[in-house]
């Protein structure tokens, strides 16, 4: 049974179990996301897709909120834009993102979102944390300076590849993605070197060896493909 709702005043019809984000996308309305990637489970962590829903005091993440008949949704208010910009600024200040020398320069979701939100500079104090680079793997590198802890790598490795090589250690701002028992990636007993994590990473945190500045474009076609091929026939 289809449901009808309004998004930014536009009438939208949606499938019964769709999320707001899916319904918006189908209607051609873009809502910014960062932790989300179609084909992986939703974690609702980046908070960029928060939207205003009439009658609800709280902002709701569009990626995990199901459509409800008659819902009135605003996705692009001044308040939301302000919050989104601040969240992006917090990310830039949290690690050491140096776009100019990054392999993903020009192909980075964080960089693109910053530009889309008119970020001319970061108002928060840069924290300049100690973050390492692990280049022990034959083909790939993890640079923690550029990691935003979206956990796409963790999810793709667990849900699609089935290896669960990645997870997150520590907590709060000291969290880090790790392989196995926080061992060098190159020593990992569980990693299949499939490279899915590298391709889903939104920034230059995970990249292929041999790629220089601005050369690391990501290839994600495998994800919708695998999702489709693994669907049970109806």
């Amino acid at each position, binding site marked *: 049974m289809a449901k009808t709702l309004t998004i930014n005043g536009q009438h939208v019809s949606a499938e019964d179990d769709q999320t707001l984000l899916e319904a918006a996308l189908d209607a051609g309305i873009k809502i910014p996301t960062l932790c989300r990637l179609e084909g992986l489970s939703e*974690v*609702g*962590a*980046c*908070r960029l897709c*928060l939207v205003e829903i009439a009658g609800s005091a*709280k*902002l709701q*993440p569009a990626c*995990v909120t199901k459509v409800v008949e008659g819902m009135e949704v605003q996705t692009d208010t001044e308040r939301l834009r302000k*919050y989104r910009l*601040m*969240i992006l600024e*917090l*990310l830039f*200040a*949290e690690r050491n993102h140096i776009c100019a020398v990054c392999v993903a320069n020009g192909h980075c979701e964080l960089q693109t979102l910053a530009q889309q939100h008119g970020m001319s500079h970061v*108002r*928060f*104090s840069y*924290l300049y944390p100690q973050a390492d680079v692990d280049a022990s793997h034959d083909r790939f590198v993890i640079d923690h300076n550029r990691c*935003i*802890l979206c956990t796409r790598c963790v999810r793709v490795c667990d849900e699609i590849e089935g290896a669960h090589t990645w997870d*997150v250690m*520590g*907590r*709060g*701002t*000291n*969290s880090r993605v790790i392989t196995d028992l926080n061992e060098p990636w190159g020593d990992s007993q569980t990693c299949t070197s499939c490279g899915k994590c590298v391709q889903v990473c939104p920034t230059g945190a995970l990249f292929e060896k041999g790629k220089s500045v601005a050369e690391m474009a990501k290839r994600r076609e495998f994800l919708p493909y695998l999702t489709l091929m693994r669907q049970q026939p109806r």
Partner: protein
Amino acid sequence: MVLEQLIAITEKEKKARKEICIRCCMAAGCMSSRGAEIKESIEKAVSEKGLQNRIEVRRVGCMGSCGQGPMVGIEPAGLLYQHVTPENAASIVEGLSGGSAEAELGDPKHPFFSRQKLIVCANSGRIDPERIEDSIEAGGYLTLQHVVSELQPSQVIDAVLKSGLRGRGGAGYPTGLKWGTVAKSPGTRKFVVCNGDEGDPGAFMDRSVLESDPHRVLEGMAIAGYAVGADQAFIYVRAEYPLAVSRLQTAIRQAKHHGLLGNGIFESTFNFNVELRIGAGAFVCGEETALMASIEGRRGQPHPRPPFPAESGLWGFPTLINNVETYANIVPIVKKGPDWFASLGTEKSKGTKVFSLTGKVRNNGLIEVPIGITIREIVEDLGGGAPDGAKVKAVQTGGPSGGCIPVEHFDTPVDYESLVGLGSIMGSGGMVVMDEHTNMVDVARFYMQFCMEESCGKCIPCRAGTVQMYELLTKIVERRGTRNDLEQLEELCDLVKHTSLCGLGQTAPNPVLSTLRYFRNEYLELLNKEVQESGSSGVQEQKT
């Protein structure tokens, strides 16, 4: 176990009672001041004088006035000794056999005691928490027997609903509604969870209840299990509370042994098993979805709600989560009736609330008071005001999620709504008194550091926002802050409050917001006048 056996235990216990009972507090507070040695020394004195037939020396839980501990009480004389030492403890026995006691006598008529209304803590400091027979004699498990043999689950839920009981973990959601939702949620299994992850610094209500009367909580959970249709429960307790953990383990073992937990309780078809889960030092696990992740053996990270645990909780099954004090209220509500309970408290908030009253206040300890009592009564009458003639400035309620209430609002009656109106929350019941020497900006920074270090790291606003707020507060406390910094701090408060994923982040700005609201001057006085007009956020370490 059947009703007759319960009654038989009660009779046997009553018969074994002696003329005089010396109650020795052996909850964590008094234990840390050599409570165990005190009990030994009293027992030794009793046996030396050959008074074993007249005097019983009983280990009991918390008597409330922990700040004056170790406490020793005498029944039926109603005497209360405080600051007892192993050295002067024997003289208490002396006092009972014609001599004089050297130990310091407390005043049981003091408002600290007389103004309390004991429901949750009715057995605390009276029964031996390590003997199930003591609990049974005090009426324990009789209510469970009545419930499983006489009542329909829906009748139990109705009673809880009618009583007006609201969740004592902090948010104040009507308990009966939650029970009803879990009961109605479809699921092949259901779970009951008791949240004993009392993480608020400055709060120890749940610890005290678990240490003093664990069977009360277990019985409440079992009644809940019967009402919602759950056969398995978990009780999640902080590892920081080793005594509470060991007493619970003892209580669960005893209850199982007597058939009060397990399969076919009171010869009915009702099965109810309780497993203990020990927390491992993560404040965020007090948040219900994080707590469930922790029970499942994962990192204690919250997930977005909905789905609420009542629909999809542990392993995806409908799960009822209430906190320790909420379960401890269930037995009296069912036993004495919802109307009796609803007659206590205010229009919207019924019953009593246990608070831990600490900080710059004369009488530190645990109090249970009717909801609706004013803050002034609590702080000044029960608490006796600040020590050393200092002036009380504010009281902090609700821990890192709460706020500071200034003295000019002390006539506000304490209930869920009024505290929210003042920019704080009821929370789980921590009340920390601040006096004129307390620097409120530093207090705000203390809580922000707490939230920063306890942030799970999942969502960006809380993970990175708390760090920035902490840095800004540090700058201000160290007199390096500018007007811009203060503005940025307020913007961040707004962001983190409205965009964080879970309650920890959404409430983390509260201590800052409430101190800004009532003590803005303290912030302004700390701002660096020289650099006020200069650039934006300025820099921390350049001057060093």
